[in-house]
């Protein structure tokens, strides 16, 4: 699989994503610089990593979405290419209108950095196909603006189209107010577009995908993507 990792000014999880795809999963992986458009025709996957692109000024992702590389990524996505946005990458995909909804400040007003459980709501997507019988993943979150918001009508539509991919839950997979770390509507942790080729999530799968570290659940997402290509 040929992968591209976008580097924005302020990206800080780009090397983690590169490391997992290139060194742990042995995939051909390239950097994509934000200031240049790129020909992505030969690529299978583009990752928008976490961080604080453009210092999160104005709103997270608001300025990054106008980077030249985003023109290429929008074209790539419209053509069916797989795009994965993690944390700040998710925020950029929402600002770009490649995904529906938005992310606002955590209900607690605190930056939250901890392991959480998320339930796979749709195992039949390019991002989740390799989950087997496993439905609950342990993945860390680290964000301040991670409370997913969308109006009730659109939330309903997301559910009907099976676009909600992950929900925050407890270790048993039960979704409740207590297991919702940031106040997201419907406990939503990750969504896809209607075509299911663009996905954004707040948890960081690249932080639990290296056997040298505790936890490997993040690999399921990357391996699912690899198995499609």
């Amino acid at each position, binding site marked *: 699989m040929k992968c591209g990792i976008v580097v924005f000014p302020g990206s800080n999880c780009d090397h983690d994503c590169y490391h997992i795809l290139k060194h742990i999963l042995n995939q051909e992986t390239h950097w994509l610089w934000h200031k240049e458009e790129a020909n992505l025709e030969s690529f299978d996957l583009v990752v928008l990593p976490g961080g604080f692109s453009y210092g999160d000024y104005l709103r997270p992702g608001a300025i990054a979405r106008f980077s030249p590389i985003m023109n290429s990524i929008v074209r790539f996505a419209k053509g069916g290419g797989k795009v994965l946005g993690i944390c700040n990458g998710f925020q950029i995909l929402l600002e770009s209108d490649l995904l529906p*909804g938005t992310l606002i400040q955590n209900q607690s*007003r605190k930056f939250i950095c901890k392991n959480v459980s998320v339930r796979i709501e749709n195992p039949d997507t390019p991002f989740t196909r390799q989950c087997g019988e496993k439905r609950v993943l342990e993945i860390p979150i680290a964000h301040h603006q991670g409370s997913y918001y969308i109006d009730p009508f659109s939330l309903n539509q997301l559910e009907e189209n099976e676009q909600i991919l992950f929900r925050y839950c407890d270790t048993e997979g039960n979704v409740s107010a207590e297991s919702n770390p940031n106040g997201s509507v419907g406990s939503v942790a990750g969504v896809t577009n209607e075509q299911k080729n663009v996905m954004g999530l707040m948890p960081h799968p690249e932080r639990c995908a290296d056997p040298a570290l505790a936890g490997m659940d993040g690999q399921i997402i990357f391996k699912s993507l690899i198995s499609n290509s």
Partner: protein
Amino acid sequence: MLAQIHVTFKEGILDPQGKTVHHALNDLGYDEVLDVNIGKYLEIKLDSASEEEAEIRVREMCERLLANTVIESFRFTLVPTE
């Protein structure tokens, strides 16, 4: 010309910062405070040919970049400058 732009959360969107300040004001004894909504204020200096043109362009700036219209609304006034 100067555009004075206010961007605020739409009705019904949780504003944790506003809520915190609201509680702080109540704690200080300002019991009359019913709600606090914290937003952004931007001043943009313009070199526009006319007020009509500025009006159209500033609205476009707000919709494209300055406000996230999923959760925020905006309003602005144009003030003549030297």
